[in-house]
């Protein structure tokens, strides 16, 4: 799941403007998930899932304690973990990957792999998921 989260964030980083930070790439992944999932689970439904994902990620990434999920499902306080981003090699931080990975993990847990992939494919291009048909991708 971390592998897939990493690929999604990397994809967004590649498709964003050069001036945009890795944090905004992560937020773009998060926002796209909020948009597509919110449509069918509702705002409150997505907010619950995201809050749970954040709670699951915090023990692994203490800096995420500054982040929070608002009532509309938006993610706030990500600036606090910006310091961890290694701008030199332009790689996403563990904290960002883990948060997205936990969110995807919850989707897989509740909806199963096939349906989760179906939903993600409607938001991101299919090639991101190619050669890695399983969500049980290798860890970064």
């Amino acid at each position, binding site marked *: 799941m971390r592998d897939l989260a990493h690929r999604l964030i990397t994809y967004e980083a590649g498709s964003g403007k050069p001036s945009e930070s890795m944090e905004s790439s992560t937020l773009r992944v998060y926002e796209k998930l909020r948009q*597509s999932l*919110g*449509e*069918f*689970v*509702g*705002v*409150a*439904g997505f907010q619950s*899932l995201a809050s749970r994902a954040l709670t699951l990620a915090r023990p692994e990434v203490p800096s995420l304690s500054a982040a929070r999920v608002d009532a509309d499902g938006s993610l706030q306080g990500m600036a606090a973990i910006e310091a961890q981003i290694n701008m030199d090699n332009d790689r996403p931080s563990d904290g960002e990957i883990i948060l997205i990975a936990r969110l995807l993990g919850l989707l897989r847990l*509740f*909806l*199963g792999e*096939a*349906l989760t*992939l*179906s*939903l993600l494919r*409607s938001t991101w291009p299919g090639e991101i998921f190619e050669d890695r048909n399983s969500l049980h991708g290798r860890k970064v």
Partner: protein
Amino acid sequence: MNTQDKVKINKLPTGVPGLDEIVGGGLPEFSFNIIAGAPGSGKTTLAHQFVFANATEERPALYFTVLGESAIKMLRYQQQYTFFDPAKLPGAIRFINLSQVVLEKDLGAVLEQITREVEKANPAVVVVDSFRTMVRKPESDMDLQSFIQRLALFLASWQATTFLIGEYAEDELRDNPIFTVADGLLWLRQTAERNSIVRKLQIIKLRGQDSVPGLHTFRITDAGVQAFSRTFGLTARKRNPPRDRRLSFGIAELDKMLDGGVREGDSVLVAGSSGTGKSVLATQFIAEGIRQGEPGIVAVFEERPEAYAERAASLGLDLETPQKDGKLTILYLRPLDLSVDETMHSILDAVQKIGAKRLVIDSLAGFEMALSPGFRADFRESLYRMIFALTGIGVTILSTVEVDETFTEFPFSTYSISFLTDDIIRLRYVSIDGQLRKIMVVIKMRGGNHAKDIREYEITDKGVLILGKRLTNYQGLISGIPVRSDRPDQTEEPSLDTGIEHTT
């Protein structure tokens, strides 16, 4: 107006096995339907089946969820059904959650959002699940009836077939103005009867369609909802004209008593007490059919197919080979909680699968006992419908029934199902010369002659063996305790009666 001028209404497959037959061939395209029933009655599952059967990328389905079951849980559970194809989401099937707008705004806003989504997606199917939860806000500006009227008008214009799902109790069904708007009203109900759950559906209304009236049993399995039409899916099939071909039992003397054999398409009842050879006779009937190239079905309830075939083998009848060759199916039906219609569908499926010409039901008492207690009240009615349907397409049915042996009466059947049969063969014990011997008599043969003779028979390792002559030197044979008379036995051929039916 001739038929060419009339608008043709396309019928969409419901995706629910058995339901197309009930609704008259499929649901009318662009119809506005309500699926009503108590919680847990299968409303959402039925709607999902329709959606998965009809949605395409070009003409998708929009599934609006409102308050109630969360969409994520609904998808979690619904994907357990075999009809659920995750690849159809979200391209061909889109789930849209309306709970926020319902909670924060009024029905007008809900209608606005639905309108917006429909105009954007151009869907073929729209589902609102559950529309009833939308009116639990007291400050709603628009009442539910107006909402539904406007929604129905809009969705019909946008060429969408629509389902509103609502939780309603039985007494809310009457005089409810909301239901007048709908083109179709499907009512699902489930009741607990003793230890069993009985699920039934009813098409209360369906404009423009000739649906099958009445309550139809349905079941929810891992394949979703499966409905069992009261007509057993045979309404579309033409009844064969009665033929005069005779089917042999493979017992020459019995065939003679039946004036050449059982008439094809008849329903025959073999009645007798335990041990009189009803099953033996039934086995010989089915084996003779196979020998003559007529596939057969045996529905057994009191012993397993292997035991049935072994017993046939002890009579010199090979039932193993025809089973392997697809000429014979022995069905063991002892589910205990099935409905009568569901059980009969299993028989009908088997009949149609191998093109059976002969069917044995051994026995009716076992059949009835295999049913859920709640369905036993419908047993005779359903049996009548099945026999009528099957004999109508030329299948000849032989049923066995156990009757209480008394030595003062001569009942044909304790189940009062004699009216279901064209022909009745009665087997019974008689006490003669210090022995318990067996006699056979043809009681009734609709529309044909049959022997009036009372014949003695034995069960040997070759099956039923009718002894040479009718018993003329006894009086009161059918009482079971005959009295010897001085008249000698006769040896002439069996005498046939005039075909006048006996009152049963």
